[in-house]
């Protein structure tokens, strides 16, 4: 497994580290030559050290289908992915621009609806949106911000351009892995951190805490912040408990909270009831309050929406923020940015086709084998069709679905996602990856230095989701000085 970059061939794809066999990109040069200097034994030892560190830290990702065995190690590849800080600054600006516009958009939809009056965004789309919650109309959260925590997925195409693939505005997960991956890499390659100037990522929990504090309805020095989880069987439970621990916040379940006559939210403690100011909820909208949404939800708190509308508690993300987390809405984001900020998007969208438009639909149906079809409202990589890897039967199934419910689907050309060198058994091979940075917006806006790089460990696979055989890598934003 001794690394020799001359034998590593990314082909005609964009590789994050090696441009052509034997030649590393500028930002990755130090890392590439260091890795090449390691003996096969040395490299194997580092991978083992990483596996051990992960087992010790208990980094696990729950997968529903594994029955009793709910803790599974989350595969980690030790070779970091490097991005030059100069390139990153531009991405960062682009993300701030995007989230700012999206929040203005959500706030507008729930209030004046100017964007609809001005005919930039069609009313029919809003009316048919599954994630628009009429119960939230007429309310304006603090700073007008609805999506306080956003995870946007970025991908690179062949020519190296970054695109936004989707915005996760409901309950995005993965940030704990970003922080822990860095911890593991520091243990495995300590010498690399001495040689390189890599931006730290471990301030995320502190930034999250500050953002959540800024939402508190009571002017307190110590607002009571809680993380609300659906419980141990949720796939991201590890992250919920990790973030709670790092912020020193209580990790609560719905049954721990109660809304009283004064519209305030209290948690049940051994000291009696204690008022809660901010809830970082990791429970989906439809489950948070059986009075307002799904009546038989046992994960939520009766009266939570009432408490929120009365301004007695802050919810992050605000209920209803998901209206902008819809793949059809996604296709309008460039227009949304233009409309609210009068700017051109700094990071482009992946070119997309809307199935509800007759002309575009005809094109999609005629070209299914070249396209990726995505449902408007799913996450986790479920329910999509990857045209180039699909069977005729799958394509005809999707053609039927699209014709029946065009509003539920969009299509995009199959991008050839960028790759990075990944340890696969005893060899180093290119594997596809994406990047999920996290953006926090409250009183101020913060973007993580890099984010979570997810890698599709199966050869040729484009699906990076951890629930479907993906793994992750540490992501370095490298200070390159004047270069």
């Amino acid at each position, binding site marked *: 497994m001794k690394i020799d970059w001359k034998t590593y061939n990314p082909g005609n794809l964009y590789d994050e580290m090696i441009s052509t066999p034997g030649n590393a990109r500028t930002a990755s040069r130090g890392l590439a030559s260091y890795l090449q200097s390691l003996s096969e034994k040395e490299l194997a030892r580092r991978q083992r050290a990483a596996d051990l560190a992960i087992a010790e830290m208990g980094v696990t990702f729950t997968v529903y289908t594994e029955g009793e065995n709910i803790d599974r190690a989350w595969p980690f590849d030790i070779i970091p992915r490097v991005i030059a800080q100069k390139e990153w600054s531009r991405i960062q600006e682009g993300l701030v621009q995007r989230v700012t516009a999206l929040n203005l958009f959500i706030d507008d939809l729930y209030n004046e609806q100017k964007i609809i009056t001005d005919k930039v965004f069609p009313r029919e789309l809003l009316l048919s949106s599954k994630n628009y919650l009429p119960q939230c109309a007429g309310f304006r959260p603090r700073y007008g911000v609805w999506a306080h925590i956003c995870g946007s997925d970025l991908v690179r195409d062949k020519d190296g351009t970054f695109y936004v693939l989707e915005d996760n505005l409901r309950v995005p997960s993965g940030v704990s892995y970003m922080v822990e991956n860095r911890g593991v890499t520091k243990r495995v390659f300590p010498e690399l951190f001495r040689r390189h100037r890599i931006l730290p990522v471990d301030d995320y929990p502190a930034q999250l805490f500050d953002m959540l504090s800024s939402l508190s309805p009571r002017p307190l020095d110590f607002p009571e912040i809680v993380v609300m989880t659906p419980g141990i069987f949720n796939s991201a439970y590890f992250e919920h408990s990790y973030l*709670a621990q790092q912020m020193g916040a209580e*990790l609560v379940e719905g049954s721990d909270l109660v809304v009283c*006559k004064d519209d305030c939210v209290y948690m049940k*403690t*051994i000291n009696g009831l204690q008022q809660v100011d901010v809830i970082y909820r990791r429970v989906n909208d439809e489950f948070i309050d059986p009075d307002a949404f799904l009546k038989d939800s046992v994960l939520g708190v009766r009266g939570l929406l009432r408490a929120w509308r009365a301004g007695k508690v802050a919810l992050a993300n605000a209920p209803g923020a998901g209206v902008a987390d819809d793949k059809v809405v996604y296709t309008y984001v460039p227009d949304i940015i233009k409309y609210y900020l009068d700017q051109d998007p700094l990071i482009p969208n992946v070119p997309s086709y809307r199935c509800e438009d007759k002309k575009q639909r005809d094109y999609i149906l005629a070209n299914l084998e070249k396209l990726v079809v995505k449902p408007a409202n799913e996450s986790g990589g479920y329910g999509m069709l990857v045209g180039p890897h699909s069977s005729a039967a799958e394509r005809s199934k999707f053609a039927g679905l699209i014709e029946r419910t065009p509003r539920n689907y969009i299509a995009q050309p199959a991008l050839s996602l960028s790759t990075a060198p990944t340890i696969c058994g005893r060899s180093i091979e290119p594997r596809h990856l994406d990047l999920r940075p996290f953006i926090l917006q409250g009183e101020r806006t913060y973007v993580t230095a890099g984010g979570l790089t997810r890698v599709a460990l199966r050869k040729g696979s484009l699906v990076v989701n951890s629930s479907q055989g993906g793994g992750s890598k540490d992501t370095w934003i490298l200070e390159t000085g004047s270069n």
Partner: protein
Amino acid sequence: MLSRVAERLYWMARYLERAENTARLARVYSYLMLDLPNGVGLSWQQLIDITGNQELYRKHHRTSGERNVMRFILSEPENPGSLISALSMARENMRTTRDLVPSEGWEHVNELYLFARKKLAKKTLPKGLYEFLSEIIMRCQQITGLLAGTMSHGDAYQFMRIGRNLERFDMTSRIIDVGSATLVARGAELERLEGRLWTYLLRALSAHQMYRQYVRRQIRPDIVLGFLLHDMHFPRAMAHTLGEIQSCITLLPHHEETLKSISELSRQVLASDVGKLYPQGLHAFLDQLQLELGGLHKEIVQTWFAPVPDQPA
């Protein structure tokens, strides 16, 4: 501290202690049955009576031979008092409070459950039943010791201590109840058999050696009873367990009412006249204590686990 978390820790400790005590009970009973002559009045059915699950047992079995009874006590998943159920519940409660407990605690409980499940998977009783039960007891003790030695003795730990001692009180009273079995024998023969029976009961509670050391008298039912009820220093004596609960409770908020109930219970235990209780009145007296214990549990739930809103919505 969240009420739910406190409750889970309390139950975790209760179930772990219950597993240990069930193993103790099963171990001593199988030896007793070997050592007491047939027809002196002790039957396998009584073991079911002690655990208080007669009805459930009847649903599963018609006869009460050794194998059926032991399997019901050790490996019946539908019996909430069985060894395997207790370990499984200890594990579930531990799993959902992992953040608060040293991680070795979770690992040991998990391994212990998997070990027992494997050993109890067959329809027959495990080979080397005595060794198996002894290992369960030892591993439960290890976990209790691990937590005592590595976990901060704050509120979380106090709830575990309360659970452990409450459960211990419960099982000591059940094991004593074995002694209220009327032995069919007379004169010197009865005395000899009683001596043997109560020696076993002491052994079931690991109390034999301490009894010898501190009481220094022959093994006679009323004296043993006095030791197991009134001794303030032996960890499985009822008065001692109540003292432990009392000292935990005083460290917790809003403890006034619960403290009163537990003082009253202590008073009853200490004031009991063992000479008069044995043998006829013993069973009824222990029944009464069980009821009071249930009441104490309810009070703990109301005080710390289920705070009632001042202004319910």
